[in-house]
């Protein structure tokens, strides 16, 4: 199994969720993050002094999938999250040894 992690723009979450559901994904874990890369942050003014807030808010999605689905889900995320502007984010895949469903104690693909 694989864990696909996506860092995306917060306002694309709904579109991405719809896309991965269409690709057969049944569950997603979401959390807040912030990041920077080529996209630098914005400028705020405080008491007459300008300074840069360089961390931009992002949303992290984590999706457990079977090995075969990782590429498909990655493409689904990329196309749904894409706006073409710097800061659209990253999607990466890591190998997973095992998954367990807490409710039932099932393991492996059954636990997804």
């Amino acid at each position, binding site marked *: 199994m694989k864990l696909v992690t996506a860092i995306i723009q917060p306002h694309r979450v709904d579109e991405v969720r719809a896309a991965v559901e269409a690709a057969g994904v049944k569950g997603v874990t979401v959390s807040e993050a912030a990041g920077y890369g080529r996209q630098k942050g914005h400028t*705020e*003014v*405080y*008491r*007459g*002094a*300008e*300074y840069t807030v360089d961390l931009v808010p992002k949303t992290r999605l984590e999706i457990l999938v079977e090995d075969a689905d990782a590429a498909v889900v990655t493409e689904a995320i990329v196309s749904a999250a894409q706006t073409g502007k710097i800061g659209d984010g990253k999607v990466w895949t890591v190998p997973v040894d095992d998954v367990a469903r807490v409710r039932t104690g099932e393991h492996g693909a059954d636990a997804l």
Partner: protein
Amino acid sequence: MDSGNIAWLLTSASLVLLMTPALALFYGGMSRSKSVLNMMMMSFGAMAVVGVAWIFVGNGISVGESMAGGLFGNPTSDLFLNASWVSGDGEALISTGFGATFAIITVALISGSIADRAKFSAWLVFSFLWAILVYSPVSHWVWGGGILSDAGPIFNEDWFPQDFAGGTVVHINAGVAGLVLALLLGVRKGFGKEPFKPHNLPFVMIGAALLWFGWFGFNAGSAFAADDSAAAAWVNTTAATVAAILGWLLVEKIRDGKATSLGAASGVVAGLVAITPAAVAVDPWGALVIGVLAGVFSSLAVGLKYKFGYDDSLDVVGVHLVSGLWGTVAIGLIGTTTFGAWDGLFLGGGFGGLWAQIVAAGVTIAYSAVATLIIGLAIKHTMGFRVSEEIEVAGIDLAEHGETAYEEAK
């Protein structure tokens, strides 16, 4: 006893009492979320110890019969307000209460310059001593027939300082004390590098608004009656404040490109401070001028701390000292006699008034600086005034009060 006057004094005293928690909200919102409670507790602590100090001897020192040639009122003249109480006179009684609220807010104002780093116990001791040794005598000088009044040795019945509601006694006094304490305690870790941004700007705005609301009691209540003067003070208070918001925002728009909510809230306070001494001494047009320039001056002044390197954390100096000075001096320039005592320079009154205003400001600055320094040094070298850098970085709330301001749901 006039029931209308008592009604207005009861209302005014209640309004001014509210100003200190309003200040706690204003200051607290400007703090970081790890030190908001300590900031607010400095106001609440001032309410407690200055309240007791006032009831004990402060009221006597302030309004008792002059001693030592007008240096202070008789401290034992109203111990525990006993004399006021047995008089059974409502106006006397509520006036002592009104006075207590002024002493409290003046002390609380100072705390803004030492955010995030003062020991709470040291602050309580400072509050008690400063209320008795600085606030009470200075208020006697100006309002109690002391050395800065027309009855004092410096002035005469024609030319004497006008301070309707506390430009010298409250704002210059607290502003100087704030500067001294900021220097005494030193800068916070990260000062000048990190912005230390307000953690909750809606709190700052509502705090400023509640200050404004309470300030009607402060200024219009200082007429000590529900009369024409009180009405005049109300109108000027509003005129100066609305103009000061514009003045502050204008500077920001021109200098930074953006008008901020922190600027609007700060403008409110700057306008209120500046009109405080002048509430009836100028006409509404003069109030607009005082207000808009208070906004301009203070918005420019809050940057000075970075230049000179004193960490006046929440801008007690930039707002209270600067606008307090401006309002005090402005009377010497544009004061009029409709409700005021003499005409200012630009209205043909000559330099007499301007001179009186400057002397009153100067004496207040000098005394406040020296006395605050002595009290501050005494505390610093006995119990210590500042928490460790470790506590400061971790957040003073936890170390000093054992609490964190906000809890997530679980």
